[in-house]
Each structure stands twice: as structure tokens, then as C-alpha cells.
């Protein structure tokens, strides 16, 4: 019987079985940032413990970064204090830090892959739930809390229970202007926001095989929104091509040896799964969320649910969502007015996202009254986009072109919704209050759909805009 990638990576990184029955799992790469690490360093300090493997730890700053004026000290005193704490901790413990003075700063889940830190067959941990993103490379990547950040700093290990595995096969070609974002929203709508609890998701099938690394990252990124802590794609030629020539990727003969090992970690054809789900790729439509969790989405030609559509026991949570959103049950989602358009976040802020969005917006104007902004995922993405002239396309259309960071995905900087504003957003969470206003409303969609909404001022099927 063959093994899955999850089983192979798990076996290769198991140190021992702990007295509690949990696995002690070695973590190959620990990514840290300013929000969830300061408490962990304080715990370490109070125990007088060193960082066990500083060379396997890498820091950046993303959540609190201002996207307009990045001069120090930051205008926001609390943000400045968090930044200073991370600087002090990295200096004291000898941890590499891509701070704002470097060209490598950006969202942690964008820079890890860009720098070649993220590699197939690795275990990765980071104090952020979207760490599942790195699974796109065939890594097993866990989002963890601050106490576990302390554990990894102190021991480079996690105490963790094994996961079951579900293979999600997406077969067939996706339609025009249908993206990885639409596929993952479809998967979460189908399996529910708790469907993945206890599971790792392995994404497979011809649609996933055909995806770029950026697209695979989008899918894996939102695994956690479906309840799955880990999501991954088996490494293949697309993965190896992406890895080539990055700062932390092996080079020369070592690259060949690395590729051989990475290939060997992919799931065997006769591996067995605890569960299998098949999604028909050609049937996936551009999707939009209408509610307050990422499972509450419909195709752009669909309607907001009404009482008869939904099982009686589930109507309570659906009606809570529809009421919060202020939507009419049974109304079409298309035509919903928006106030803000946001392209950014660890889900959809990479170069290919910006290229797709700019292709649609070129030569057009954002609708009157819509505030629109693009926040590239990293300085490297921003620079590459500027070299292609994408910044000009966005700015001419009426989008603001900002510095790299998490920004309005969770509004820990000054980019936020006001009052009841509705935001067409390429981010990952439509929770109540997520974008900084307790009553603000978020509609999740692909970057291309965000641009379509920005141009018309309402939710619009981007396919109608393709020439």
C-alpha cells in the first residue's frame, strides 16, 4: 500500500511519540511576524530558554504595516511598539528579519515561497491560520497560536495529533474568468466550514495540475476556511520550475538532488484516503459570498437564500447572516451595490492576481463613489508589477496603489471599512467586523470579480466584461 504526501512528511519529521500519545513533529521552517510572536518570546525569556534553531526561523512584518506612510516611527504608537519588539527579539536571538528596510518584506505567506524558504516535503509552522498556503508546494504547513510559537522557538517541534486525509479532485478545465478562488469557495460551500475539521485536504485532478503556483497557493490558503488546518498539492514540474533560482533554493547539482527528493515525497498512486470528493471543474462559476462565513457563497448568477431553500435547522444561522448583511432573501447577488473594492491579502495579492485584474480594468474607470485600492502581497510583487506598468493601469482607472502588507483583510493598520460599507474583497474572511468596522460587510470574490464590481459599482459577472 502506498502512502500519501502527508504520511511521508509526517513519518520523516516524527521525533517520537510523546507520553500524551501526541506526535513530536520536527518543524523544518518557522515563520514569525509581529502579532503572534512577542508573547512567545516573553514566555521564552521568562524560562531563560534559547531559540533552538534560529537558522530555521525567519521573520517579516505584515499585519500592522501602514500601506501609505511607512516612515519610522509609525504614526500608530501600538504598531510601532510591535515592530520594535520584533526587531529586538530578532536581534537578541539571531533570527533573520525581512523588515521594511529590505526588498524582501511582505505578507509572510507571500514572501516564504518567493524567497524559496518554502519547499516541498517540509513541515512549516507560523502563528497565523493561513499558513496552509505553503501546502501549495507539497509542504505540510500548520497555523499555530502563540504558545505553540513558543514551543517551536524553544524546541523546533510541535506536539500534535495525526490528521485524517481527504482528497479533493477537481477535474476538467475551468471556464473563462473562473479562478482558483472560485474553486475553493465552491469547495467550502459544498463541504461546509466545518467539513475539514480533523482532516488535511489534498487537492488533485487535472484542474489543479493545470494551475500555476499562485493559484495553488490561493486554494491551499483557504483550506482553513473549510475547517482543514492543512491543505496541500503534490509537487510536480510546475512546482520545481517555480523553485528554480530563488534565494534559498538549492542550486546546481544540489537542485537536481532536491528535485529527486521532492518528487519522492508526492503521494503514491495507490495511497489510500479517508475520504474522496470530486468537483467538476467546468461547472464552477465565478462565486461571491453573501453571508458572514466563507462557506456562504453562490455563483454570481445565483440568489441569496430564502427560507424554503434551506434545511430548517440551518435557517437560524443563514437568517442571522442575511439580516447582518441587510440583504433581501431570494434576491440575485448580482447587482448588489458596493462602496469599497480591495485587492490584496495572502489569498490573492500575487503578481498573477494583479495581472488578471489589470487586464480587465485597462483603460476603464472605477465607478463614481467607489473607493478602490490594490495592496500588493510583497515588495517584490509590487516592484515586478511596476516593471510591467500595472501600477499605472490601476492608478489611471482610479485604484490607489499601496505598499505591501495585510491591510484591509483584517484592518490592523489604518485601512478599514467605515460604518455599514460593503466591500468587494479578494481576501479570505467575511466575518462580522473583519475589515475593521463592526458593522462593515465583506463580499469575497476573485480579484477579477473585484475589478468588475469596482467598475460598475455593483456585483457584476466578470465574464460579461471579457472582450
Amino acid at each position, binding site marked *: 500500500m502506498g502512502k500519501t504526501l502527508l504520511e511521508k512528511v509526517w513519518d520523516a519529521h516524527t521525533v517520537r511519540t510523546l507520553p*500524551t500519545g501526541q506526535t513530536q513533529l520536527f518543524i523544518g521552517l518557522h515563520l514569525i511576524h509581529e502579532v503572534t510572536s512577542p*508573547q512567545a518570546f516573553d514566555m521564552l525569556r521568562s524560562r531563560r530558554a534559547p531559540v533552538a534553531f534560529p537558522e530555521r526561523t525567519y521573520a517579516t512584518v505584515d499585519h500592522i504595516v501602514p500601506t501609505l506612510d511607512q516612515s519610522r516611527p509609525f504614526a500608530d504608537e501600538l504598531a510601532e511598539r510591535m515592530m520594535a519588539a520584533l526587531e529586538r527579539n530578532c536581534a537578541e536571538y539571531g533570527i533573520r528579519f525581512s523588515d521594511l528596510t529590505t526588498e524582501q518584506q511582505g505578507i509572510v505567506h507571500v514572501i516564504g515561497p518567493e524567497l524559496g524558504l518554502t519547499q516541498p516535503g517540509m513541515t512549516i509552522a507560523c502563528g497565523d491560520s493561513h*499558513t496552509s498556503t505553503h501546502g501549495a508546494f507539497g509542504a505540510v504547513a500548520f497555523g499555530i497560536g502563540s504558545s505553540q510559537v513558543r514551543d517551536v522557538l524553544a524546541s523546533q517541534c510541535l*506536539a500534535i495529533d495525526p490528521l485524517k486525509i481527504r482528497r479533493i479532485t477537481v477535474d476538467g478545465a475551468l471556464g473563462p474568468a473562473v479562478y482558483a478562488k472560485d474553486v475553493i469557495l465552491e469547495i467550502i460551500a459544498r463541504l461546509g466550514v466545518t467539513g475539514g475539521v480533523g482532516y488535511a485536504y489534498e487537492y488533485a485532478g487535472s484542474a489543479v495540475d493545470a494551475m500555476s503556483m499562485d493559484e495553488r497557493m490561493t486554494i491551499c490558503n483557504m483550506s*482553513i476556511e473549510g475547517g482543514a488546518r492543512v491543505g496541500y498539492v503534490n509537487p510536480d514540474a510546475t512546482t520545481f520550475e517555480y523553485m528554480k533560482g530563488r534565494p534559498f533554493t538549492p542550486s546546481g547539482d544540489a537542485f537536481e538532488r532536491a528535485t529527486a527528493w521532492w518528487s519522492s515525497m508526492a503521494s503514491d498512486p495507490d495511497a489510500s484516503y479517508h475520504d474522496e470528493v470530486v468537483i467538476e471543474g467546468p461547472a464552477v462559476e465565478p462565486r461571491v459570498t453573501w453571508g458572514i462565513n466563507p462557506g456562504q457563497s453562490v455563483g454570481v448568477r445565483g440568489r441569496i437564500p430564502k427560507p424554503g431553500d434551506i434545511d430548517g435547522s440551518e435557517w437560524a444561522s443563514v437568517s442571522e447572516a442575511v439580516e447582518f448583511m441587510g440583504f433581501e432573501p431570494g434576491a440575485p447577488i448580482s447587482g448588489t451595490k458596493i462602496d469599497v473594492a480591495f485587492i490584496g491579502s495572502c489569498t490573492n495579492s500575487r503578481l498573477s492576481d494583479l495581472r488578471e485584474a489589470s487586464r480587465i480594468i485597462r483603460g476603464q474607470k472605477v465607478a463614481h463613489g467607489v473607493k478602490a485600492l490594490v495592496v500588493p502581497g510583497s515588495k517584490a510583487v509590487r516592484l515586478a508589477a511596476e516593471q510591467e506598468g500595472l501600477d499605472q493601469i490601476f492608478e489611471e482607472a482610479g485604484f490607489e496603489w499601496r505598499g505591501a502588507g495585510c491591510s484591509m483583510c*483584517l484592518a490592523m493598520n489604518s485601512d478599514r471599512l467605515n460604518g455599514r460599507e460593503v466591500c468587494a474583497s479578494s481576501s479570505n474572511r467575511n466575518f462580522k467586523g473583519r475589515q475593521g468596522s463592526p458593522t462593515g460587510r465583506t463580499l469575497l470574490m476573485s480579484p477579477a470579480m473585484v475589478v468588475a464590481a469596482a467598475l460598475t459599482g455593483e456585483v457584476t459577472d466578470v465574464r460579461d466584461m471579457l472582450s
Partner: protein
Amino acid sequence: MKESAIDQFTGSAIPLRGDNIDTDRIIPARYLKAVTFEGLGDHVFEDDRTSMSNHPFSNPSYREATILLANQNFGSGSSREHAPQALKRWGIQACVAESFSEIFRGNSLAIGLPCFTAAPADLEFAMCCVEESPGTRLAVSVSDLTLQMLDKTMTLEMPDGMRDALLKGQWDPTGMLLDRFEEVRAAAADLPYVAGF
């Protein structure tokens, strides 16, 4: 570090109805702008409390509660440990729900906050009792996996590893992970990307 074992609790409970209550609602992101967890208890459910006049966490009858009763997928979303920290600092010592998000449950364990699951009907019974008389005493047991209230005993569940960790006082695993550190070094050296391709 070996912590104290966690097993039996008695106290009153606070019922929090609704599925998919996410960590952004438990503690809004603006309170993550800090370098410690201090003071988070004051802001637990802050936005929900502002928007709902009758939020249980605003109700003085529940202010002494130490056991949180919730429905499905409690603590979904972000991995911020600030969420269980805020609950614990408010006074919660144990959570009983229909189901939890995995990261929230792990984060709770790591700070010695046990999360049990219970059957929906049992939770409904417990919530109704507590809503009717807020001071009702409950007893939960990690070793027996039971919830007792009035004259009823209900079954609780928890993964074996978590239960063991609480009962053995090893819910803070750092010490355990460092116990045989030579084995960590050996496991690392066996990995081609650590040793060098």
C-alpha cells in the same frame, strides 16, 4: 515545564448561542495591537456586545460564570491565541460546545483551558437550565468526561491526547518537547534539506 494537573471544575455557566462564532468576534483584531495578552478579558466579544443589547457577556447574572456553553464550530477562523486568552482572562475555565475549530482547541489546551464536546441535546438542556436560573451549578470532570447539573449526568468528549495532557499536567508541552533533545537533533540531521542536498 510541568504544570498542575487539570481535572474537576465546579461553577456556574454562561450560554452563548449560535454556530461558527469566530475568533474575530471573540476578540476583534484591533485588540491584537499589543505585545502581551494583558487586558484582553475586558474586550471579549466587544463588537457583539455593542451590537446586541442582551449579549450574555454583558449580562451581570453570568459575570461569575466559569464554564462557557457554545454550539457548533466555536472559535473558527484566525489562529490568534488572543481568543482563548481573552476568555480565560474574563474568567472562563472550561468550554463545552457541540464542536470546536481545531486551532482554537489546541490553543486553549496550551493555556490549560479544557474544551469538551457534548451532544447537541445535552447542550440545549444545559443552556435552557442556565438561562432559566443563571446561578445553576455545574460540575465537569476531565477524568470521567462528564458534565453534571441538577440531577442529570451527561457525557463529554475530548481527544485522548488532550485529556492525557490535562490529567498529567503536561498541557504546556515545551518541557516535554525538550526532554530528549538529542532525538530532535538526530531527526533534523536525517532530513536532506537540513543536512544539505
